[in-house]
């Protein structure tokens, strides 16, 4: 809900306005331009032959029957890619991944051969004609068994290698060990603490599941030696760099274009075998090759998220003041480590695990392991494992509260970092920029009449009804990131903006980020409008074309506003600095005598003497006094000095049917503090979307596997996708604590609701059983899983 202050009339439609999204005009009329909408002359279609088994040797591949099929142009296998050294490719996590099965398959649905045919129907028919013989091998699908002594070797290419990309490997299925914090000091606190609690908490394997699946069209121009790739990428510049590195084509001749994208959520950050095969196909055939995933392929083969198996331990005093936190995580990355984290962070930003609390001592260890499941471990609407970390600490706070008989809201308040402690350095090394947690929590508790809810719950419990109240507070760490510690493949995680103001006073801005539906065309224009006084409707925003946009690391980890938005504001300020000089020349005064007023420079003490930005823009392309260069444009590459730390207080109320186990969300209240609010309507839309995803995760989603590695949730028949039917009314609220280091004080919000929502819903479900001594239940809390808990406790009698 926008406050009256936010509805204030702004002549330029700048920061703070609840403006309708510019891009929606085309999206709601079906006029978006997605990768699969492209029809290039001579375009052909590629499709994969995929492995039906989860682990095995490829004994033979017979592609002749497929090649004999009318309309088939080529069938690529690892043997064909070997001479080009493209049968394996590097992942963003420092590992390598098979592009096509090289002697063995390591997960079900792994890419085995790539059939290129005149259209997608012929390709699908021909895929069935490729004959592949497999010899099955034992399968590992449970991370907890991956490092047992007799576990099969999944990655034979790494056998005997005791050093991985992130240090020592202690087992043939081990990827990395990442320690953070002071282990000895933490152990010491635990040894003498008045009270300790521990819990095994898994965050199940889920999928970002964007509405539009992944795909590309690759077009190689043999005459010019230029490669153009249209693809669904959240980070087109990074893809250009990777493609150039892999193919040997100079980066100046590689042109990556990300058109409109129908949702990414982390699924569209990495480089997939389909892209490589389409590129090779277009080079070999000299024709554009399109590859578009089916829904099944998207769910079963491209990047999943989470699959973290965690043990959390808290040491505390009798009043519930936490003295130390100890965490051990077993991270299942699948058959290849293809997560997309900043290079130095194999477990992402998991060390934000101390959450919103002033915890003096902590130690966390993450062991990454291989399994016979699809590769990935991406940040699904999350800033690199923040979601897993936040879920762990928010569950543990409830476990501690229960042990001590203290209310969950109260135990959080007792441990919060206090407003006067900011900037606050956590014991695991992060400097939280700003926050006021007590105020946010108090506002949330009053908004829902928390005391009244607890009273009602007590009455319901007396009658045998199951009602749960979930309290969750989260602090995110977003906006990767400062180049001093964040890079991908050696490239610092800056982002960029270039602004050109045209002679008639309108402008175009190009950025290195890439919207997937977040509304960048609207919000960036609002930022620039406020800075430059150009109406936001007159500011065009362009992203995704690497030939025109300045280099940037893309959109994920809520980095667009913290990094790209900062670049936009600072590029605008550079433009404004020049505009000031031109205005001063126009009015024959000193630049220092001018002050800015909405859309013009005014001479101090002479308010009738002014030049609007529109007038200045025209002057910028006319005769100028010596020392001033024509044109009105600027480029900014922004290296953030720190991350930003959005936070929020979420409260969820559920009623559970004690005979069916069905969970009904009666009420959900979300208070978000994302610093300065650029477009409140877009913020609310983001919160609604993220909360709906969190409902899916908490109550139904899981990429499940049987013991043979068959994926049991490869379609929407089995993978729960919440719709309007399941979605309750979301109540949104906010406080505003600007980031002190961001040019306009904004922090980013897109991922917060997914982070906080899952904890709030899961805590609510478990809280419904707290009076029965239940301390934890694994997600997803499906009706069947909840019914089993009810039945085990005999509450349905």
């Amino acid at each position, binding site marked *: 809900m926008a406050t009256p202050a936010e509805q204030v009339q702004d002549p330029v439609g700048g920061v703070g306005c609840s403006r309708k999204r510019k891009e929606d005009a085309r999206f709601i009329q079906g006029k978006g331009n997605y990768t699969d909408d492209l029809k290039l002359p001579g375009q052909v279609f590629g499709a994969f032959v995929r492995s039906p*088994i989860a682990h095995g040797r490829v004994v033979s591949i017979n592609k002749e029957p497929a090649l004999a099929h009318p309309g088939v142009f080529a069938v690529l296998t690892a043997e064909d890619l070997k001479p080009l050294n493209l049968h394996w490719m590097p992942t963003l996590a420092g590992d390598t991944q098979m592009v096509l099965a090289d002697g063995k398959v390591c997960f079900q649905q792994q890419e085995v051969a790539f059939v290129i045919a005149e259209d997608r129907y012929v390709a699908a028919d021909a895929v069935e004609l490729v004959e592949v013989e497999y010899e099955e091998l034992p399968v590992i699908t449970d991370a907890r068994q991956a490092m047992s002594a007799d576990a099969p070797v999944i990655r034979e290419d790494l056998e005997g290698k005791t050093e991985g990309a992130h240090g020592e490997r202690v087992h043939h299925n081990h990827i990395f060990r990442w320690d953070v914090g002071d282990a000895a000091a933490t152990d010491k606190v635990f040894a003498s603490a008045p009270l300790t609690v521990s819990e095994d908490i898994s965050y199940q394997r889920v999928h970002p599941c964007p509405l539009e699946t992944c795909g590309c069209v690759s077009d190689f121009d043999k005459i010019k030696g230029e490669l153009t790739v249209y693809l669904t990428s959240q980070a087109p510049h990074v893809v250009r760099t990777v493609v150039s590195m892999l193919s040997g084509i100079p980066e100046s001749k590689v042109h990556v274009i990300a058109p409109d994208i129908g949702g990414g959520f982390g699924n569209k950050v990495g480089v997939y075998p389909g892209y490589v095969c389409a590129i090779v196909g277009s080079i070999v055939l000299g024709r554009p090759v399109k590859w578009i995933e089916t829904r099944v392929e998207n769910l079963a083969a491209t990047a999943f998220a989470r699959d973290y198996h965690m043990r959390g331990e808290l040491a505390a005093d009798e009043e519930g003041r936490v003295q130390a936190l100890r965490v051990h995580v077993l991270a299942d990355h699948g058959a290849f480590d293809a997560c997309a984290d900043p290079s130095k962070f194999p477990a992402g930003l998991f060390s934000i695990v101390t959450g919103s609390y002033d915890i003096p001592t902590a130690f966390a260890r993450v062991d990454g392991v291989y399994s016979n499941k699809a590769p990935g471990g991406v940040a699904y609407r999350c800033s690199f494992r923040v979601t897993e970390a936040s879920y762990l600490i928010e569950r543990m706070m409830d476990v501690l509260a229960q042990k001590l008989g203290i209310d969950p809201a109260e135990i959080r308040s007792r441990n919060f970092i206090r407003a006067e402690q900011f900037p606050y350095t956590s014991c695991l090394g992060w400097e939280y920029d700003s926050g006021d947690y007590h105020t946010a929590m108090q506002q949330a508790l009053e908004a829902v009449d928390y005391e009244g809810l607890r009273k009602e719950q007590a009455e319901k419990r007396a009658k045998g009804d199951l009602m749960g109240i979930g309290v969750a507070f989260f602090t995110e760490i977003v906006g990767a990131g400062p180049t001093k510690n964040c890079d991908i493949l050696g490239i610092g995680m800056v982002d960029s903006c270039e602004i050109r103001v045209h002679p008639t006073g309108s402008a175009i801005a190009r950025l290195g980020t890439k919207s997937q539906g977040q509304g960048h065309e609207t919000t960036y224009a609002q930022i620039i409008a406020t800075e430059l006084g150009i109406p936001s409707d007159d500011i065009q925003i362009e992203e995704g074309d690497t030939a025109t946009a300045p280099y940037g690391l893309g959109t994920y980890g809520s980095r667009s506003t913290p990094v790209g938005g900062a670049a936009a504001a600072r590029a605008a300020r550079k433009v404004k600095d020049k505009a000031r000089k031109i205005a001063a020349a126009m009015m024959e005064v000193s630049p220092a005598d001018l002050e800015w007023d909405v859309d013009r420079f005014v001479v101090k003490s002479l308010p009738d003497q002014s030049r609007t930005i529109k007038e200045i823009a025209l002057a910028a392309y006319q005769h100028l006094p010596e020392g001033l260069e024509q044109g009105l444009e600027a480029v900014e590459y922004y290296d953030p000095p720190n991350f930003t730390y959005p936070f929020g207080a979420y409260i969820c109320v559920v009623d559970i049917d004690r005979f069916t186990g069905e969970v009904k969300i009666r009420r959900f209240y979300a208070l978000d503090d994302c610093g300065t609010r650029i477009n409140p309507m877009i913020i609310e839309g983001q919160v609604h979307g993220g909360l709906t995803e969190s409902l899916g995760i908490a109550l139904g989603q899981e990429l499940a596997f049987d013991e043979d590695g068959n994926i049991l949730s490869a*379609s929407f028949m*089995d993978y729960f996708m919440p719709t309007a039917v399941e979605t309750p009314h979301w109540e949104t609220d906010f406080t505003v604590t600007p980031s002190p280091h961001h040019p306009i004080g904004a922090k980013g919000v897109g991922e917060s609701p997914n982070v906080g929502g899952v904890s709030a819903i899961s805590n609510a479900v478990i809280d419904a059983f707290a009076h029965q001594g239940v301390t934890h239940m694994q997600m997803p809390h499906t009706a069947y899983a909840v019914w089993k808990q009810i039945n085990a406790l005999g509450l349905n009698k």
Partner: protein
Amino acid sequence: MKVKLEKKHAIDAPPAAAWSVLRDLNVLAECMPGASITGQTGDNEYTGKVSVKVGPVQSVFGGTIQVTGIDESNYTMKLDAKGKDQSGTSNASMQLTASVQAGEGGGCELVGNSEIKVMGKMANFGGRMIDGVADQLISQFLANFSDRVLAAGEGEAAAEAAQRVAEQPKELNALALLWGMIIGFLRRLFGSKESS
């Protein structure tokens, strides 16, 4: 994905008559809806195919059947079947131990233990239905088997059985299968209520 099934089926015929059907793989295969033996590649090795529909996935599996043990004195046969579907998207295997035991009043009982393993698309999409489908398949198989045995006998019962064999559908009847599954589901539903 594994399905383990144990089934017993009483047949009003002498054990020797049942055994003669059981040990003839060609006749045995005809008892399985949608299955047939397509060739013999060795003393105890055969090729065959079976078409199955599980949920939205229809597959024609082709593969090998190996008779791994025949115990004439105990009327017991063991076989391993392995196959993959024509599109290369699913694999399946079955290990079966079947024996004929003496039953009441001169009759006999066919006892079958099988473990069916399914990989790939069939498991991906048919996962929730596969137990029910396998159960129905085996039930139809047992009924057909029983008819073959009875048809080899004499009298009115034999004639009726022979008639049923002649009318036996050559492919798995999807509608009948679905009905069978619904009945099975309802039985389990009400069965569990009575027991609790």
